[in-house]
Every structure is written in structure tokens, then in C-alpha cells.
């Protein structure tokens, strides 16, 4: 375990601000061409909750890494395109990154839709791709060149259902959008419910650009016996769902959201409608509430501090996904001794006990995400703050 290895742990605690030693070593070879990291993210559009902090995190940390001497003796160069969360643009930018910018590695795809659209292009071009998308489908079945950092939708549902079971709920309703992540998440909910003694009595879909979820929520309200609602989704639609939920006075029915809402922006924009909602999130969002001996505490604290100081805004789990992707990539490039695509891919797959802000990553040929439920925390929103439950 790295956690028990003090020297390695210390290095990781410093975050991606790569070892100064490497910088000293690399000084002599600074003239070498930079290692190119490409990225397409939903910086604008309905999924900008995700893409914006992701892009900011990547820019911030690539700068820091470069100031500290780069990776494997070479500087990093970041190319970011704004896909606006649109799958079509994601494909086009993936092609551009590969053929025109000739990047060595891609981090990106804020959403499942973008990632799955770009997946065939990346697989064919054979270069490592670390996705920031939530759904299981990204890494299941395993695709040779594709990895991901966030917890999966299945894990979110498992965590939610465990909690629901503890509260002795029997009947739940599911609500979500038509996008790839939402679809996958709802399918998981229907599939996993019986294992937790639950029954999905209502399964409602809203449209991608809907500005009103009242009809769906009303149908859930009029379904007899609903004890809890599970929301699948991210970005603007989740905010609208939360607001409508409050407007309809449905707070007597507990609401769970998946980790796609993991940012302060969600709470703020929902204008108080999120009180009492429970959400499983990555540790980074509740970094200050982690136990003192939690192995993730140092790196999480460091990331929160660095990001907040640089941008003067609260952190989100999404920026954390990007941070981890960059960490996994740079560690793999270091071990591979350079940006050779096949070697870096193999090294990413060998990532073991790497402490990130999302959790502790141990990847394998059959697991291209490498997280387990330990690092997934159940939170409740109280007084507009994320409060760690367990």
C-alpha cells in the first residue's frame, strides 16, 4: 500500500506539482519538444457545471507542473477545445486533437455522451484517453485505450440504495434525462433495486432541453407509496428538477441525487431547494470533514487550497476528476519514461494504490476505473453545505 509508504505518499501529497528533482534532471533537456495533452470539455452549454472546473483545473495544474520542471524532463503542453457538451463536436475535436495537434494523450469528455461518441475515433487512433464521464458504459466492456476517473453510475446507485435500505424504504421513483449518463444510471437503478429489496414504482424521463420537470414530478407524487426519489443526471436539468421539487412541496419524500450534481453551484442555483437531499460524492467535496488519518486528506486539502486560491471559487467534484486524470497520466508518463503511447497506456493500466482526490486508484486489465466504494462518501445537504454522513 502506498499509504503505508511514507516517501511515496509524501510525493503524492504534493499533488501533481511533480517532484522538483525531475525538474533539476530535466533542465538539461528542456529544449525537447513538449508532451502534448489534448482535451475536449463541455466548458460552455448545459454541462458547463462539469467542463468549466475541469478546464480550469487542467490549466492550473499543467502550469504548476511546468514550473516545477515538467514530466520526464519535458514540459507539458495543453490543448483544450470546448465541445459545449455536444457529442458531434466532441468527435470533431477528438479528430482534430489526434490528426492536427498530434497530441500524445487525451483527457476529457466531460459527459458520457461526448466520451462514447469519441471512443471509436480514439480506439482506432490508438492513444491513451482518460475520460471524465460518469457512466459505466465508458469502461464496461473494457476498451483497450480508454480509462476513466469518476465513480460510476452503478456505484452511485449502490450507495444510494444501501442508504435507502437502512432507512427501510421499499418503493422508490427514478427521474432522469435522455442523455447517455442518465439512461445508463436509470437502467442500473431498475436492475439493482431488487437486490436491496426495493421496487422502482415510477421511472420518469424529461427532455434534454426541458425547462420544466413539473409533469414528471407530479406523476411521481401521484404514484402511491413512493418513499424516495432518485435523480439521475447532471448540470442544468438537475437544478430545475430540484427547484420544481420544492415548488411542488414534495419535501416529505426524501430525494437522492447521483454524483453528477457534486458542486456548490448546484446548491446555489437550486436556491434552497436542495435542503435535506442526499448525494453520494467523491471525497474531495467534503475534504475538510474527512478524518485526520484518512489517506486522501492531504491531497484533497492541497487541491482545495490550490484551486480556491487560483480561481477564488469553491471546488467541485468535476475539477477533481480532471485533477486525478492528469495525476494518473503524468505518473504513467514518468514510469514510461516519455510519452510513448503504447507504453503510457500499459503504465496507466498498471496504476496501483495511487491516491487521488476521487479515491485510491488501482487499475487492471479488467478495471479501467480502479475505484471502489470506500472512497465514495454519502453526504446530505444541510444549510446549503455538503455534510459528510459516512
Amino acid at each position, binding site marked *: 500500500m502506498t499509504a503505508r509508504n511514507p516517501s511515496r505518499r509524501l510525493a503524492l501529497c504534493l499533488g501533481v506539482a511533480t517532484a522538483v528533482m525531475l525538474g533539476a534532471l530535466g533542465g538539461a533537456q528542456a529544449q525537447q519538444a513538449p508532451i502534448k495533452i489534448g482535451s475536449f470539455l463541455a466548458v460552455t452549454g448545459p454541462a458547463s457545471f462539469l467542463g468549466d472546473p475541469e478546464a480550469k483545473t487542467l490549466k492550473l495544474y499543467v502550469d504548476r507542473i511546468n514550473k516545477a520542471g515538467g514530466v520526464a524532463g519535458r514540459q507539458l503542453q495543453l490543448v483544450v*477545445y*470546448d465541445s459545449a457538451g*455536444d*457529442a*458531434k463536436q466532441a*468527435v*470533431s475535436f477528438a*479528430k*482534430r486533437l*489526434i*490528426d*492536427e495537434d498530434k497530441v500524445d494523450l487525451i483527457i476529457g469528455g466531460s*459527459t*458520457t*455522451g461526448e466520451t*462514447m*461518441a469519441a471512443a*471509436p475515433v480514439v480506439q482506432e487512433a490508438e492513444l491513451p484517453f482518460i475520460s471524465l464521464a460518469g457512466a459505466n458504459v465508458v469502461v464496461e466492456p473494457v476498451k483497450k485505450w480508454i480509462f476513466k476517473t469518476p465513480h460510476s453510475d452503478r456505484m452511485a446507485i449502490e450507495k444510494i440504495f444501501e442508504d435507502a435500505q437502512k432507512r427501510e424504504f421499499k418503493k422508490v421513483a427514478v427521474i432522469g434525462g*435522455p*442523455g*447517455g449518463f442518465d*439512461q445508463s444510471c436509470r437502467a442500473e437503478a431498475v436492475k439493482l433495486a431488487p437486490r436491496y429489496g426495493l421496487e422502482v414504482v415510477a421511472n420518469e*424521463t424529461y*427532455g*434534454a432541453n426541458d425547462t420544466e420537470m413539473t409533469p414528471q414530478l407530479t406523476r411521481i407524487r401521484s404514484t402511491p407509496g413512493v418513499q424516495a426519489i432518485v435523480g439521475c443526471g447532471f448540470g442544468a436539468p438537475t437544478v430545475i428538477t430540484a427547484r420544481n421539487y420544492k415548488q411542488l412541496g414534495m419535501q416529505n419524500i426524501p430525494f437522492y441525487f447521483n454524483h453528477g450534481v457534486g458542486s456548490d453551484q448546484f446548491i446555489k442555483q437550486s436556491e434552497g431547494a436542495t435542503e435535506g437531499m442526499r448525494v453520494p460524492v467523491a471525497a474531495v467535496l467534503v475534504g475538510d470533514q474527512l478524518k485526520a488519518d484518512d489517506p486522501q486528506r492531504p491531497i484533497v486539502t492541497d487541491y482545495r487550497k490550490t484551486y480556491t486560491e487560483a480561481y477564488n471559487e469553491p471546488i467541485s467534484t468535476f475539477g477533481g476528476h480532471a485533477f486525478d486524470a492528469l495525476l494518473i497520466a503524468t505518473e504513467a508518463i514518468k514510469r514510461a519514461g516519455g510519452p510513448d503511447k503504447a507504453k503510457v497506456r500499459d503504465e496507466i493500466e498498471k496504476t496501483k494504490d495511487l491516491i487521488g482526490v476521487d479515491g485510491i486508484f488501482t487499475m487492471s486489465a479488467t478495471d479501467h476505473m480502479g475505484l471502489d466504494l470506500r472512497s465514495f462518501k454519502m453526504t446530505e445537504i444541510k444549510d446549503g453545505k455538503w455534510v459528510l454522513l459516512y
Partner: protein
Amino acid sequence: MANPALGRWGGLIVLIVVVAALPLVLPNKFYYDIAVKTGLNALVCVGLNLLIGYAGQISLGHAAFFALGGYASAVLTTRYEWNGFLALGAGAVATGIVAYLVARPILRLKGHYLAMATLAFGIIVSLVLNREIWLTGGPDGITVPTLRLGDMRLRSAETWYWITGGALVVVTYLALNLIHSPSGRAIRALHGSEVAAETLGIDVARTKTMVFVLSAVIAAIAGSLFAHADRFITPNEAGFLRSVELVTMVVLGGMASTFGAIVGAALLTVLPQALAGFDEFKHIVLGAILVGTMIFLPKGLVPSLGALIRRWRR
């Protein structure tokens, strides 16, 4: 132009030369990919120009036909494992039938009402593609398999460049032929005055329907090719903005000018890519270029520039 035959076929020859010579200056696959997108947009615009430029009918729902073709290919090849070319043909025929069915009631309308009706049609198609997830995969789109010709897999951007280029030349040739045929003259007569056309014995309803169906079928074929070339399609292809984009291409390039439609399509496909480096300013720069073109070259690029050159020669 001095010699009308030269004007008619000269342009086509220029097009063929450009298509044949372009690969000499395309540095990598990414540029081929943009060239393919340009060609497919140009294909749709040549068809749309017959309707807007020559027949004088507006369509704000043309992206729907493009998407119908594309989704026919996508759904038939993935879910029902049809041969790609068969799916393309089926998509074109089906879209033609849909266009025929909507043409009869819609084309009785004029001006704003016609625009509204085509707009509504486009939105309906877009809604269906977005919401019928079991069939279309929803807003995140659907992955389309590679087109196969016998044992050959039509996959690389270079291959698709030649397919699109060839299709564009053929469709342009057919469009030019049509415009200069008796039917073409009938179509153009509609633009001038429907009443006058009717007095001359032209079956207005039939002619309008024919142009509408023809442009829809061309759009559907382009859509099918797009789905296979990109191996991915989303409902955005049917969206309102996409329809507006297509009309803008035709208007920008120059209405009632086949080559204008091609130039407009090329410009509006390449510019956003060229401007991607401007980040936030991209939309402002693009907007400024469009506004500037419409103010200084109100008839569209090709006709305005053509007039300018003729005046300068004199």
C-alpha cells in the same frame, strides 16, 4: 458571360479541377475530414438552392431530411444489420415519400406560412429523434458501422473525400442540367410569379412538389453519407439551428447560383474550424464576417463578386 455554354460548364470544370487538386494541399486527415464535411454540406446546399434560389420556396426544416437519411442508415445498419448501400437507398426513398406527403399540404402555403410549416416539420423530426431513445439512442446519438463495398471497408478520410467529391460533381452536373431544361425553366418561372407560371400552363403544385422532393432526397443521401463518414450521428443534425445554417449557406453564397451554394457551404464549414483558436471571440468574428458579407455583397458572394468582375473587365 460572353458564352453561356462556357458559363454553364466552365464552373463545373473548375469544380472538378478543385476537387481533384485539393488533396495536393491537404496536409493531414483532419483537413480531409473538414473537406468531407464541406462536400456534404455543399451537396445539401446544391439541392436546397434548387428550392430556395430557383423555385423561390423557403424551407426552414431541411436539416430534418438530412437527419432522416442519416438515421435511416444508422438504424437500419445497426439494429437491423442491413447492407449500407441498401440502407442508403431505402433512406433516400423513404425521405422522398415523406417529403412528397408533406409537400402537398405545405407547399400550398406561401411566404411566412411556408417557412412556419417547414420549421414545424423540422422540429417534429428533431423531437422524435431526441425522444425515441429505443430506436435512435436519444440526444447522445448513435454509432454507425463502417460502410462496406464488398470486402472493402470505406473508412479513411481520404476514401470519403473521393466519395463526397464524386457525389458533389455528379449532383452539381444534374442540378445544372435540370436548371437549363424545360422543367428547370418551369421551376424558375415559379420564382417570378406563380400566377404567370400557371397561365403559361405550368402545373404549379406538381412542379413545386417535384423540387421539394428532389432537394429532400439529395439531403437524405448526403445525410446517409455523413452518418457513414463520421460513423456517428446525433439529433442535432435535425435541429432548427442546423436548418438555419443550411439556409444561411445558400443565401451567403448567392441564391440562384449553384456554385454560390457550394462556396457558401465551404465558407461556413471551414470558417468555424479556422476560428476555433479564437476561443470566446469565435462567434463574434464569425458573426462580423456574416454581417459584413450581407451588407457589402447583398446578393451573396458568387453573384456579387461575378458582377464586380464583369464591371471591372468593361
